[in-house]
């Protein structure tokens, strides 16, 4: 065979392969994510629990979203603008968004969602204990009273916070449920008024006109668009009926590409696509299975055999084991980007297994993924898996 003939055949083979491939890679049926601890309650304000935060990134979108650069971009809204003094923020809402139930997400629903967050933030003021970094900062410790049993029972989320004040200057928080970021409480309390701006016109054409949501702040906040991003919009009417069970099991109704199909804490959380997502051709994967593994080794084995495709909170030991497997790779975790807004993560446990050592310590700086997994910017920025798929 001459060299020319070889290249011609190679070109023909390449062309055949190219046309044989689908013009667009089809969505995969299922994506698996390994998680190191069970999720009992998915609270929309528990933004410092990494697994809950990952789930919320997929089932409950906020008005804006965080990009890989740490800036904000539109998500549920078409646009937003602020007043020169940064005390009035106006968000122009999309008209085609709906909750996972199919109920339209109106401006009033979003308004009610934020009112709910404000109320919860006011009630959660007990959760302001911050981790002390050094003995010199011991005096900076802020602590308010923990809620009484009666207060706790009236709250929609079953939070329990256990404070341990050791003799050492370092204060550790053991949470059965994650707490709200202190900064978020302050930001929510800074909102003086939330109003819906609906143009005055014939009522028969109102649906076609732009509706705005306005936030009036007590104090100027030039970063309002950034920190409002993690606050996922929830269906208030449904949440009220769920009562204090909201967030448990499948009792969640948010605005996102996925909804909770199953939540068996000792097994994991299964997400399924909604039929009402406002972006065409998304999400790319029909089901995301967040599987709970009691130990790191079983999680790694599952990743190797293809039962899962991502380890969300890997350990040192798992990262070391990557060297033996050319199909897996460790990349920067989206949790790093997310923590810029809400602060350091509050893990329910520091090690994957009970009684683990340093090699078993959970890391939030990296994730392990299958090399063939297609991750888009949304996934890399904030663990939003709507565009992620396995070709």
């Amino acid at each position, binding site marked *: 065979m001459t060299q020319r003939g070889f290249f011609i055949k190679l070109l023909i083979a390449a062309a055949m392969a190219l046309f044989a491939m689908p013009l667009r890679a089809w969505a995969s049926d299922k994506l698996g994510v390994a998680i190191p601890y069970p999720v009992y309650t998915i609270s929309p304000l528990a933004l410092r629990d990494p697994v809950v935060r990952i789930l919320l990134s997929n089932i409950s979108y906020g008005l804006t979203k965080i990009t890989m650069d740490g800036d904000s971009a539109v998500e549920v809204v078409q646009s937003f603008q602020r007043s020169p003094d940064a005390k009035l923020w106006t968000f122009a809402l999309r008209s085609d968004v709906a909750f996972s139930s199919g109920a339209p997400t*109106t401006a009033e629903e979003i308004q009610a969602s934020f009112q709910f967050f404000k109320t919860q933030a006011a009630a959660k003021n007990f959760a302001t204990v911050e981790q002390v970094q050094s003995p010199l900062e011991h005096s900076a410790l802020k602590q308010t009273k923990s809620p009484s049993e009666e207060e706790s029972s009236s709250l929609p989320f079953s939070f329990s916070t256990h404070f341990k004040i050791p003799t050492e200057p370092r204060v550790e928080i053991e949470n059965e449920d994650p707490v709200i970021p202190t900064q978020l409480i302050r930001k929510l309390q800074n909102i003086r008024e939330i109003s819906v701006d609906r143009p005055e016109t014939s009522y028969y054409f109102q649906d076609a006109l732009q509706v705005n949501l306005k936030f009036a702040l007590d104090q100027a906040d030039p970063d309002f668009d950034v920190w409002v991003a993690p606050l996922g919009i929830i269906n208030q*009417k449904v949440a009220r009926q769920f009562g204090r069970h909201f967030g448990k*099991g499948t009792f969640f109704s948010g605005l996102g590409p996925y909804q909770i*199909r*199953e*939540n*068996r804490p000792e097994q994991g959380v299964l997400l399924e696509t909604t039929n009402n997502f406002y972006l065409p051709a998304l999400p790319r994967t029909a089901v995301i299975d967040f599987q709970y593994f009691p130990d790191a080794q079983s999680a790694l084995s599952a990743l190797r055999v293809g039962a899962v495709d991502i380890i969300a909170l890997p350990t040192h030991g798992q990262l070391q084991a990557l060297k033996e497997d050319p199909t897996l790779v460790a990349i920067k975790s989206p949790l790093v980007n997310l923590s810029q807004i809400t602060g350091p993560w509050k893990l329910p446990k520091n090690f994957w297994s009970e009684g683990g050592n340093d090699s078993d310590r959970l890391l939030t700086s990296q994730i392990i993924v299958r090399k063939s997994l297609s991750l888009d910017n949304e996934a890399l920025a904030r663990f939003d898996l709507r565009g992620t798929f396995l070709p």
Partner: protein
Amino acid sequence: MRQMTKLTSLIFLLLSFTGFAQTAHQLYLDLAIARAKAQAQTLIQNKPRLYQTNPIQEIEQLYASWKKALPLGFPVPEVSYGIARAALLRALVAKPDLQLPLVCEAFQRLVEATHSSPHVARYHIALADLQTQLPHPEITCLALENEAGSSLQKLAYVEPSKRLAWALSLGPWATTDLYLASLVYLNLGQKMKALELLRINQHINPYFTTEQRNYAAQLVTSKAELEIALPRQYPEILSWVHHFFTLRRNDYLRWKEVFVTTLDAAINEVIERFHARKLAPEHYSAYIKSIATVPLSTNSDLLRRHLDALLADIYEVEGQANWARILRVRKDLNRIPVLKAAIADDRLPLKTMLFGWVEDDEQRTLQLDVLGQSLGIFLPEGMNASMVILQNQGSSGMFGKESLEILVSDDNLNFHPSRGHIETQVFFIDGRETVALLFEQTDFCFLKIRYTDPNQKAHFENSLTNLIQVYGKGRI
């Protein structure tokens, strides 16, 4: 004596001639008025043509016809009114230099009519209408050196609103007069009064059109206005409920309380009509059943309880005693605002969690009799369900008690058949199949209903809010 006889004969002849002239004049007047009215009716019926072909000739003929009805120049109120309307119509199509004189003539004629017949509401309403559009004709028409200009100077000015108030006090009203009066009130900025008149018009006018109703509904911008405008009678109120439900859902939800209380008043009005023997029994039952099918009725405990009591009596008379019994039980229960879910392909019903929750008043439709599908409900905390009603929208076939499988759960993790007894009753009510599930005890938070008959005969479908209705007691 002969002179006396001549005088008597002369007087007799004079009187006879006067009577004859009067009769002839009245006859001529009646004919002229009838002819002018007939011409006006023709123009009204050809209304679309009026603006398309601009039949100036027909309008001028109409105007001339009315003018001819005054052969001797003596003002006749009806003729003056006719001339005024024709003059305004002519002003629409006349050359600019003729328009003002025509309008001023219309003013003059309406003033004549109101002075001659101050107890005819129509004339006052028409004059008030013209006054709102030309507030000071005595100034505007003063420049005209004609009969209209000089007579309008003598016009004692009465405010349009006062004139309208006088007109409305004259009652009873023609529906067209009422409608015109409402429009005049709108021009005056008195919307509440206008809405009230439109409401009254709907009550008395069987020919109130859909366009007019939509126009009236469009005027409503607040809850207070709705309270004034909303008809309190059947069937008008149902048209409004449907209008807001379909076209103005946000306002419907915001002002739902007004719709509920007004519909309740309408139900009472129907009952009163029935008891006063102004309504035949078959119409009465049809009206009540019609009201009961409206979404507002099924989602409001106030209305539903009222209707259940009435319907129980109706169905008892119609021979549906068992269904009447169910209604009497339901009358004392609250509709529980459950959350609903549907799993299209539930292959492991004992283990599959319910998800995708929607509210109790969800309007999207769902078919119950689909093999493999699970329809679920979540009972909010503190609620005890004692009755579940499954209602079909259509009338296609009927399925038996054994076609349904009922599973319950406390935690949405594991489902099992209910430990308590569930009584299942199937009814065929007014051509629609209805299934009633009566629970002895509420031993569940979650309920799954599955259709299991492989020999599917029925097509059981309805909006989710009507497909499955849960009743019971507890803290709402």
